[in-house]
């Protein structure tokens, strides 16, 4: 950044090449890993000793095993494509060298997170990605939401109208939710160190089985609290949809493909701790299933294309958590869904970005329609990703979602509930995703007069095409021809453990049919509503009572706002008014009044303050002495 001016033109290419180089290195290391037999595939790179003292030994140790290799490949691979895309997308932004440096810093932090061999190094990456996310969400700090004025022109809205999508408040929200999660991570870390005396993964996981049930549950739930923050699960998911105020490549990279999966990765990485606590696994399962359903319902009610995709991400993350909550039968399925989701959701976001790029940064789905012919590449690649997320047979999403649901079904008990919710949610997913593509690319043209939608430059469409191909074939390629998930699962087995038995093929086929059938119903309903000449806006008005809660995100934000803004604000104002006599003056009236008051009526006012300060000292002293002397 210090050389910004000179390198501005090249910043994007330098950043992209750096990440692509990381991908190549990761790929080489991956093949090297494959050359070892299964059980020897964990390599630990002893890094420089951060420090040792007493019992605590912390070093920059990195771990290269199948799980971290998988994550590293996804992170660097998807990042390379998104960096490339960003060169086109951020072409006209005057601070793009800053943007690329932060994007690179993000990738570096993410790699630290997935390659860590102890909790501290992981926490370093965990904090790093959070910080980058915060900075990148707020990147367009001075840009407001675009709204259509009564004349049909696109104008910048007032910050008050669009409080929740304006970048700085969105960044703040992301920050707050993540910090709540970080409390969980920190406390879990302290608890782990207090009980096992180490932060190294091998040592901690070795002792995880011997933990008392209560301790294991506490650690696991604290870790999961961290996950709900980072991976946007109930109740902390609310930051993710607002985070869409950031540039779209950021949404694709950080808020869909990589960072938000960190929580899923954390559960998989620390699976021995979760296995030691059945309670924690049940909580993860229920939160995952509940979030999947809740977010899918809300997604139906959104008109902003990025918000639809954001809630869809929250919902899909719920599936991943269902997978990793199930124990050995689900880990591979959850991780597979993580990988396929990274591909198709990155494509969907980049496609949405391409749509915005060609439509003057508009994001309102009501202003599109019939873009199919204007943006053919964007259209076809988005349809590929749509097929994947909806679960059209033999696309990647079909395999991964199917495996998650099959694992839930086989798990039995509470897993059956998760399975039922998952299947129903699959139908909802098909509906809202079909609504998204139909309203955007099909039907009549609804864009305002004078707009000329156009296809994006090749630097943006090439990543779209690559991701679309991956979205179609990744599931097929990663699983064996039997559809049993054998190869992928076998690859991860040394880390995550082997499931006990496999279900019969016939039952699996029946289960797939259920989910796929429901998805087909969802898609057909969407087709009836949104592609056929049909006044769906009139329908929406007629059913306003049912529509409004969905459009208002089931009022979760309002409830949170009441507790944080109203109650928190009242508390802060109270503190400022009654405890810090001068702080609020600074906040409200500016320093000017302070100057005036201290200059004009200084002596009288200030001596009063000193007296009250002295009173505070006296009161404290009396309290302390009284406590010490009169305590029984």
């Amino acid at each position, binding site marked *: 950044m210090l050389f910004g001016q000179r390198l501005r033109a090249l910043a994007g290419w330098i950043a992209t090449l750096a990440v692509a180089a990381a991908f190549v290195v990761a790929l080489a290391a991956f093949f090297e890993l494959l050359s070892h037999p299964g059980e020897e595939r964990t390599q630990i790179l002893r890094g420089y000793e951060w*420090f040792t*003292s007493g019992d605590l030994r912390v070093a920059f140790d990195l771990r290269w095993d199948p799980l971290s290799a998988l994550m590293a490949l996804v992170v660097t691979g998807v990042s390379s494509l998104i960096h490339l895309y960003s060169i086109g997308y951020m072409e006209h932004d005057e601070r793009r060298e800053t943007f690329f440096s932060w994007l690179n810093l993000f990738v570096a932090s993410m790699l630290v997170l997935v390659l860590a061999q102890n909790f501290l190094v992981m926490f370093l990456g965990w904090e790093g990605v959070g910080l980058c996310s915060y*900075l990148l969400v707020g990147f367009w700090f001075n840009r407001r939401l675009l709204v259509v004025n009564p004349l049909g022109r696109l104008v910048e809205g007032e910050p008050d109208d669009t409080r929740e999508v304006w970048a700085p408040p969105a960044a703040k929200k992301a920050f707050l939710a993540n910090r709540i999660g970080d409390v969980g991570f920190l406390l879990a870390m302290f608890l782990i160190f*207090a009980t096992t005396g180490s932060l190294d993964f091998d040592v901690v996981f070795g002792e995880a089985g011997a933990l008392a049930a209560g301790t294991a549950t506490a650690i696991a739930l604290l870790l999961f609290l961290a996950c709900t923050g980072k991976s946007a699960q109930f109740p902390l998911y609310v930051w993710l949809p607002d985070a869409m105020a950031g540039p779209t490549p950021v949404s694709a990279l950080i808020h869909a493909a990589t960072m938000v999966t960190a929580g899923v990765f954390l559960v998989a990485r620390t699976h021995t701790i979760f296995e030691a606590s059945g309670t924690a696994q049940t909580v993860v399962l229920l939160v995952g299933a509940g979030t999947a359903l809740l977010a899918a319902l809300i997604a139906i009610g959104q008109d902003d294309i990025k918000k639809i995709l954001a809630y869809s991400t929250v919902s899909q993350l719920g599936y991943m958590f269902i997978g990793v909550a199930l124990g050995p039968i689900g880990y591979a399925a959850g991780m597979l869904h993580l990988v396929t989701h990274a591909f198709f959701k990155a494509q969907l976001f980049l496609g949405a970005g391409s749509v915005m790029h060609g439509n003057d940064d508009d994001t309102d789905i009501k202003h599109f329609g019939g873009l199919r012919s204007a943006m053919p590449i964007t259209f076809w690649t988005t349809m590929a990703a749509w097929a994947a997320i909806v679960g059209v047979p033999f696309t990647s999403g079909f395999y991964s979602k199917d495996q998650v649901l099959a694992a839930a079904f086989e798990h039995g008990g509470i897993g059956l509930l998760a399975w039922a919710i998952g299947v129903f949610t699959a139908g909802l997913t098909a509906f809202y995703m079909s609504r998204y593509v139909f309203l955007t690319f099909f039907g009549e043209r609804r864009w305002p007069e004078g707009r000329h939608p156009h296809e994006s430059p090749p630097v943006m469409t090439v990543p779209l095409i690559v991701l679309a191909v991956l979205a179609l074939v990744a599931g097929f390629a990663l699983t064996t021809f039997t559809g049993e998930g054998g190869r992928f699962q076998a690859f991860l087995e040394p880390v995550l453990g082997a499931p006990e038995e496999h279900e019969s093929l016939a039952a699996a086929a029946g289960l797939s049919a259920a989910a796929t059938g429901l998805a087909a119903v969802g898609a057909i309903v969407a087709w009836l509503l949104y592609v056929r000449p049909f006044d769906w806006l009139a329908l929406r008005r007629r059913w306003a009572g049912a529509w409004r809660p969905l459009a208002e995100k089931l009022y979760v934000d309002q409830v949170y706002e009441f507790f944080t803004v109203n109650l928190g604000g009242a508390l802060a104002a109270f*503190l400022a008014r009654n405890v810090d006599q*001068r702080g609020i003056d*600074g906040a409200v009236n500016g320093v000017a009044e302070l100057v005036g008051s*201290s200059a004009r009526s200084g002596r009288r006012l200030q001596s009063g303050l000193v007296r009250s300060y002295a009173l505070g000292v006296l009161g404290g002293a009396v309290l302390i002495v009284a*406590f010490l002397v009169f305590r029984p």
Partner: protein
Amino acid sequence: MHPLAQATTQPLPLPEVDWRAIAPELALAVAGVVLLLVVAFWPRAGRGVLAGLTLAGLAAAAALTVWNWDLERVAFEGAVSLDGITRYARAVLLAVGALATLMVAQGDSREGEPDDSPPEVFPLLLFALLGMVLLAAASDLLVVFIALEILSLSLYVMAGETRRLAAQEAAMKYFLLGAFSSAFLLYGIALCYGATGSTNLLEIADATGDPTADGTLLLAGVGLLAVGFLFKVSAVPFHMWTPDVYQGTPTPVAAFMAAATKVAGFAVFLRVFAGALGGLVVSWRPVIAGAAVLTMLVGAALAVVQTDLKRMLAYSSISHAGYLLVGVAAAATVPAGVSASMFYLLTYAFMVMGAFMVVQYVSRLGPPDDDAIGERSSLEDYRGLARRHPWAAGLLAVFMLALTGIPPLSGFWAKYYVFLAGIEAGLTWLVVVAVISSVISAFFYLRVLVVAYLQEPVGDPGAETAPGRTPALGVALGLAGLLTVAIGLAPEALIAAARSAERILG
């Protein structure tokens, strides 16, 4: 009978004078007197000369500290003790003093304006340091009181050294409230003497185990001692002076107060409470823990609503005092509490000095503000800093992230160790509060970075007055930044040094 009363009837028994034990203090005193004479008889001496002499005095004291490094003994019949706390605090204090000298040397001079602060500030700085170093070594309550008064009197004058109204007001407030709290401390000393028959910490430690001693009197004395120390380290509810004083006083002095007073204050806190009064831990721990909770939460909560960086740093220093109190609360039963607190002081001193240096740097960019309020340190002045002064913004980022406690910077390890000591001492609930407070604090530290990095500069950048170019501030900033990063990357040696401070000699 009181020792002074005895002196009228019989010759005063003089302790053996152990010159070597107090050699660093002597060096500081001599340097201070020399500088005072230079200022008095050579009024035209440049700032550079004075700063050079001050640094020479500090270097001599540092050399003597190193010479004494392995010395562990009680000198002056128990009035002064040389142990780990003493030498660790000496080293940190002298380093802080050197950085503060560089900041003062830079001064507030702007192009075409006379120096704002008088040259007497250099000898005062040395005398204040003398008091602090002595305070860290004192093992008799009377020496504690004398040392505290030496440093307080010097600081009162330093706080009001400029003719700015805000500085004068700050000095007056600090003086009035400081005198008030000194009275509590003195009364506490008297009660302890009454209960145990001694002001010597070793003898008090013995007496706490003695069932015949007057427990109530002693506990009241302990409470009043706590009040005096809590005031010096600006813990809630004795903190109210801190924001006003830090905001009004010249930035170098504020930095010195924030860093050095805390180091000396907590050193004596640990020695008296964790050392001498360790036997009464069950009684005083709830008081210290309660003060820690209040201090952390009130400091963090009020920092959130500040719009002035100096004031925000004042509240931040309050909340850091809260984390340190967690260490003090743990220290009586867990030796790691002592080393964790000492290490915290080391890292905190450099982080907070660095943050104030950036404030000083930025305040000198714009035209002088209204004289009454002092320097330009409103958050508004930091908008777009990254564009105009990338290095200053980068260092600001380092210090803010370190104060937040984000790894791998030094502040993270400081918190980590203190929290760990808290858990080992069974104060898990206190650590939970501390973690929550540090989460709140992240909000206002990072907000500064958002302003500096993500907001457009206001006004015309060309209108900035060029800062008076002396390398002093740049060197100081570089050192503070380097230390903050280096300690974070390789904290091991300094932790090990802190561990040697765990054994308290009386």
